[in-house]
């Protein structure tokens, strides 16, 4: 368990926490269609972050309030981070929005936006 911490990364879009190798092998289980992390070390570097805080083990995303609050309800069960530090490249954000997804920054900036909205 101990050695795991260093190689773990969190997806900046859905905040799921996986090992870098898992991202490489299978991509992000939630955002693969947009981010295309599988087999792309560059994309992993760009779209995932090693700096994250607050692990959430999500067993039942549908019924969990935590998931609702974190906007994870539609994601697969797994481990997520409460906060992911780092910024997605702008083109990725654009891609997300082209796909009709609203990018929720996971680094703490979104709160004000939401309040404003």
């Amino acid at each position: 368990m101990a050695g795991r911490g260093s190689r773990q990364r969190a997806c900046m879009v859905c905040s799921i926490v996986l090992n870098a190798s898992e991202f490489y092998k299978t991509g992000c289980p939630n955002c693969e269609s947009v981010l295309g992390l599988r087999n792309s070390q560059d994309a992993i570097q760009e779209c995932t972050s090693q700096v994250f805080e607050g692990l959430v083990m999500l067993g039942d995303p549908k019924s969990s309030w935590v998931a609702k609050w974190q906007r994870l309800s539609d994601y697969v069960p797994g481990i997520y981070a409460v906060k992911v530090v780092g910024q997605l490249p702008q083109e990725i954000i654009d891609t997300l929005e082209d796909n009709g997804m609203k990018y929720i920054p996971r680094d703490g900036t979104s709160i004000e936006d939401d309040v404003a909205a």
Partner: protein
Amino acid sequence: MAASGQSWLNQDFTGDDEESDNDFNPGLEVPSDAEADDDEVAKPQASARRAGSPSDDESAADLKTNGKRSASPVKGGKSPPADDDEGEEDEGQGEDDENGDHNDEGDEDEGEDLNGDEDEDEDEEDEEDEDAVTSRPRKRRRRGLNQFFEEEAEVDEDDDDLEAEEDDLGPEFIQDTHPDDDLPPEADQDDRRHRELDRQRQLQQSLDAEQEAAKFRERYGRRTTTALSNSSFVPQNLLMPDVNDPSIWGVRCKAGKERDIVHKLMKKFIESQGSRNPMRICSAFERGDGPMAGYIFVEARRKVDVDDALTNVADVYPRSKMNLVPVKEMPDLLRVTKNKELEVGGYVRIKRGIYQGDLGMIESVETNGLEVTVRLVPRLTYGMDEDHARPGSGDVKRKRPNAFGPVNSFANRPPQRLFNENEARKRHDRFLQQNRGLTGRSWSYKGDLYEDGFLIKDFKLQHLITDSVNPRLDEITKLTKTAADGSELLDLESLAHSLRNTAAEGNYVPGDEVEVYEGEQRGIVGRTEAVTGNIVSIMVTEGELTGQLVEVPVKGLRKRFKEGDNVKIIGGSKYRDEVGMVLRIKDDKVTVLTNNSNEEITVFSKDLREATDAGGSGAGASKFDVQELVQIDPTTAGCVIRADRESVRILDQNGSVTTRIPSQVQKIEARRNAVATDKNGSEIRLGDVVRESGGENKSGTILHIHRGFVFAHNKLGIENSGIWVARCTNVITTAAKGGRITAPSTDLSKMNPALQMKGPDMSMAPPQRPGRDPLQGRFVHINKGTYKGHRAIVKDTTAGEARLELQTKNKTLNISKFDLSIVDNNTQSKTRYEDWIRTRGGPSAMRAGQGVPGSRIPDSGFGGRTPMGVMDGGRTPAWGGASRTPAWSGPGSSGSSGLESGRTPSWKGPSGSQTTYGGGGMTSYGGTGNYSTTGSRTPVWNAGAKTPYGADHGFNSAGNSGFDSFAAGSRTPAYTSSSRTPAWGGPGNAASAPTPAARPYDAPTPGISAPTPSASGRYDDDAYTPYMGAPTPGAGPQDAPTPAASFAKNANKEPLKYNRLGFDAPTPAASAPTPYASGAFDAPTPAAGGPRYADDDEED
């Protein structure tokens, strides 16, 4: 009934026909729907219907509209145009009337009654009524199923309804379907539908799997995205938890293990999913190390689920009290605060590695904010530590893995120093590469980039400390770039900014007069009573609340001052510690006129405090004082002419004024006894009044003498605080301190180095021979000085001094040994130290004493180990020359003690001026050792070497700038003047005379007899034999002064050669010592020579 039956037949027929038609359609459609449903299992029904609808035919669409109408019969009935349309139908002509009637009636009656009316009125209607009755349950059933079946099903109903109950509908239906439902082309119509449906089915089937998959994927994908976008549009405050949401329990766990626990729970959760009782928690989370350290939070419907989930998980303590998190506080648990944005120019600290804890400045930040380029002061060894790499390769291997090189431990990491390419070249040339760039000061060394001496390195965000960095001024200074002209590119503003951020709010102390300017208690004025964290208790002094204690947050508080208050600036302002008077107050900004610089500065009132100290003392305190001598760089010194808190203004030795920050300069310990010579060769010392010769003829009192430069201060001077600098040789003494006679060549005996060399030479003596000084622990009587007459115990000794503990006073002091008399413990008789040391037993004392006549000169010649030897060997001729006849006359009469008394004057001499030469003692000793073989010239060199630098210069550049260098040493007169000549003349002329060394040979006075036995005694005791022959060579140089003198005059760079010549030349008397002498010269370092003898002694 027949009529009705007939009509029924017709009706029935058509009804059947239509029914069959309709039945057929649903028959077709329903399976197709079922297919669709099968395919789209995940698809909700509604969307399935919607998805299916486009594939339906037009009629179906029409029917759908009918269906709708069927749902609102009254409305349909109300529409007259519908009736008109219906009139077109052949079949429904009669009905039309009926309908018309019905419509008229229908307005009055309800739907069911309406049907009843119809039954009564028309047979057909009756028939249909039956039909309708039978069809009703079916219809209802269909209604129930309606939501699941396609429109075709409704078509059937509509057909029924059309005739059976809802007259309005029927016509409408007919109207809608009129073209298709005409009886004659009905069959064709059916056919067409069949074909159409078939085509559709084929079409559907022909959709290949890929397309279908793509379609589904699109739908599926859209589902995620819509979910995302949907939820994202819900503001988070609408997501607030309510009672229907699962509860969250906080559970204690081992601090630091939170993440592991979450991982474990996840694993356990996944494993339990297939099992009989799966974990029923919704989620579990941790909030790292903050206030929530040591807790994990589990979200579940029931507490039992939490217990179940947490049993058998290590490091969690579910049995301890579990806290149910109140619904209101749940969002707080997941609150995310944004990290401070890292800005270029900001400061960070490194978390690990050899730079751990070092301050770095942010050079750039990667766009994703995860990698930061930091500027650091490097800690490099340049491979110096590889030197003593132990031979074992295992060792090397063990070191390798560390990315930071061999020196990895935090404790012995190299110090912070700017990168120096020259040092890197020495050992690591192959690792060094200059980067082609504009600056040319960029280097790559061992994979790292160095610019302007700084290390430019990328760090991952997680390896940096970005919060509460609290940079210190000296660290910031180290990191500050130095411009090409040497000035610091330190942005004080940004520095102040960064410092301000670090200043805590705790700027209020009890007693401050404060005013509340914000919040409920706004306007209250009072004095602070206590400060607890961010809450200040105020004793109100004005207004209604006077005398009450009010608690106010620091935030809304400001200090209150009045114009004219004497305040001191505290806190994070860059003017910290300035003291001044309040000039203006505007809100919380206060303008202060500083006492120090008479500047007006504006600061926040929170950074002010009433000054308790009246004046500017301590304000803007610099660690330097005006007039202090400081070192700017290794070759440049200067005098402080203005010292501020942030900067020091320095007049350097070249006369230019520079401003430095205090950390850049170093104090030079003032040398109180520095001596130099002025233009005329007069001695100048600190405190002397000198005048600049030429130039501006400035005059002033000497503050410092530093390496040939004089810093002087003129009280009347304005420029540079009245401080000026000149070369020693460019000033003329106008008044010496204390009326010292400074005129040159007034008193030759004073100038004579031989004479000057007095007491201090004692302390210049070579290191003592090993062993305890016999003086230690002795009871002594002080003969001289303030404590004359006191008795004391010797606690410790050095070569020339004894550390005494007074008997009468609790005091220890250092006094020259020669000012002491040793008190005999038994007889209480006093013996002067010099006598005592000679008669005293103990090897070192013995040696010194016994060596007097015979070996004194060789001693001096070969390192002059014994103080006496040095002195006498060198000085003796001088005495002769200086016509110390009285002194000699004394010894002449008293046989063996002659030497002692002969030395006496020398003892007396030094005692007077001991302090004068104290400083240069050791160095001159070295000098002595080197050149003492030239016999009596030694003192000259000694003298010249009084100042360490003087000594060096004097020797090396005697030919070129002898004057200068000797000026520095202040012995020049002695050297240049002929005053030494008498010294030479002494031994030369009076060969038979006082030279003690010569005496043994030339004058067989008791003096000679004395040394012999002592020498022999030494031979016996100490095996000093080699030195028995030594005295002679000692005489050699004395007898052959000429070459030595020439050496001195030429200031030859190869003294050895000359010295050898000197020894080759000597008279037969000297021939004996030659080998010995040369031997001595083979060991050039006198210091080494000395000990060597000592060793020999002991070994022998």
